[in-house]
């Protein structure tokens, strides 16, 4: 069980794809101008990570190491193609907004990184958990960054929620500041860089404070056996 809690903590925080590994920055910076866009891309990426991790883990003993990279690439490409077609069918408006970034999930380094670093060395349930939590960790950052940028840029949260949850969700939109004239910079690409930079800084501060609170544990000296 502790194995899973470690996978959970690694994915959501300690080795978070966006905060710590700084992978997949291109879609992260490009589509996070609203919460819903971030959520849509985050869930698509999570699904890709789960499916590719599970598949890679299933075939890990059949694939020779020399050809593993092409095999991973084919698996990831197939998964992304399937997800792209599915989104085109069921979330067509969101698909149009996210545009090129859905097929570009295939180039998100975090996916091949997890396939190579985790799924090809671990069993199927662990790989599933890793894909799920790495994906959710990425989604968390996408949503947070989307919320900051949407809040500053439009003064709202969850605008265009109907793209994802159907017409009934239109009322989900929260107006933070009425009569807000908008802060264009937050929605433009520079806002994404500033926002992500500040988020990473905030994470580092939290980690530092936590480390400072913990009593310093000195590892027990290792007995010198081979002197």
């Amino acid at each position, binding site marked *: 069980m502790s194995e899973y809690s470690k996978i959970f903590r690694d994915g959501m925080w300690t080795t978070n794809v966006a905060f710590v590994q700084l992978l997949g920055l291109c879609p992260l910076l490009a589509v996070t101008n609203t919460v819903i866009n971030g959520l849509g891309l985050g869930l698509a990426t999570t699904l890709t990570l789960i499916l590719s991790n599970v598949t890679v883990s299933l075939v890990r003993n059949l694939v020779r190491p020399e050809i593993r990279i092409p095999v991973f690439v084919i698996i990831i490409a197939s998964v992304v193609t399937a997800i792209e077609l599915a989104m085109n069918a069921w979330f067509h408006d969101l698909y149009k907004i996210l545009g090129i970034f859905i097929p570009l999930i295939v180039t998100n380094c975090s996916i091949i990184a997890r396939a190579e670093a985790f799924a090809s060395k671990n069993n199927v349930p662990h790989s599933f958990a890793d894909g799920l939590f790495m994906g959710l960790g990425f989604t968390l950052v996408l949503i947070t960054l989307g919320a900051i940028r949407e809040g500053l840029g439009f003064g709202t949260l969850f605008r265009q929620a109907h793209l994802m949850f159907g017409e009934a969700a239109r009322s989900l939109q929260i107006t933070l500041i009425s009569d807000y004239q908008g*802060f*264009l*910079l*937050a929605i*433009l690409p*520079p806002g994404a860089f*500033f926002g992500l930079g500040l988020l990473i800084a905030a994470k580092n501060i939290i980690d530092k404070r936590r480390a400072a609170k913990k009593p310093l544990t000195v590892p027990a000296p290792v007995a010198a056996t081979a002197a």
Partner: protein
Amino acid sequence: MSLIISSPHQHPANSVSRVMLSVVYALIPGCIAHVWFFGPGLLVNMSIAIAAALLTEAWILRLRRRPIKPALYDGSALVTAILFALTLPPLAPWWIPFVGIVFAMIFAKHLYGGLGQNPFNPAMVGYAMLLIAFPQEMTRWSVPQLPELHSLGWLDVLRHSFTGALPTGTGYDALTMATPLDHTKTQIALDQTVQAAHASYKFMGQIAGYGWEWINILFMFGGAWLIVRRIITWHIPAAMLCGLGLFALVAFLSAPATHASPLFHLFSGATMLGAFFIATDPVTAATTTRGRLIYGAGIGVLIYIIRYWGGYPDAVAFSVLLMNMAVPTIDYYTQPRVFGHKG
């Protein structure tokens, strides 16, 4: 000995504040002309910007656990705020100077490590951010203060800044207008000749826009005084003005109908302010002699390119920021040969 000449690096202990104060003095004539021609809005913006700059500086230094007093008294935040306020349209709501300078101090100055560490000119970062984020407020330049025009007094400007209310019977249409650079650019885009564009602009002066030419001339004299006082060297302003002037001259001679004269470019917009006060910022400019010439000329050429082909009527801020980015490379390739070493 100037602060920004290379070694030996011995100079008076208060040299930063001495340099900064000299810069402030040199700006005064141009600022007076600015107020004279475009109303008291500049002073309102400047007061807000200075107050916000000093408060932000103190706050960030506290966060960074650095001594606050010496940094506040060295005048660098003051100069940043003044230069920044000079770029703003005189009729701006109070939050324009406030947001701009706070952003500049935090993001352009202190996130990089404070005075001396910032690769980008903070005043220009603040201006560029505002121009991108609030295009409407940032492109409303005041009409010149002329007897036949309705001009706003002190109280009107203050009230507009804090409440957004204009006196009854006036509106932005009556109080603001395109700048000469802006008007010329739009008319050329409409297939008019430069001459027709200038003729259709209501307030042309002798060589450039009414008011603008005097502001530029006075900034030029202020800058010349700084060169005489050895606060700045002549390299960057001269290279920048030559870069802009020569490029404009070649363009003007080859197609006088679509390219404004070099004099118009040299005495319009922020050219002189940029050449003597912004491009010469000792922190963000190139430091070698040859490097300064390249850096200045690059800014001049970029100004012309953006003014003519780009999307904005003036281009000092973007050109300076782009060349700021090139400074480490320029400095790397223009290191002077150490005496006794092979080149």
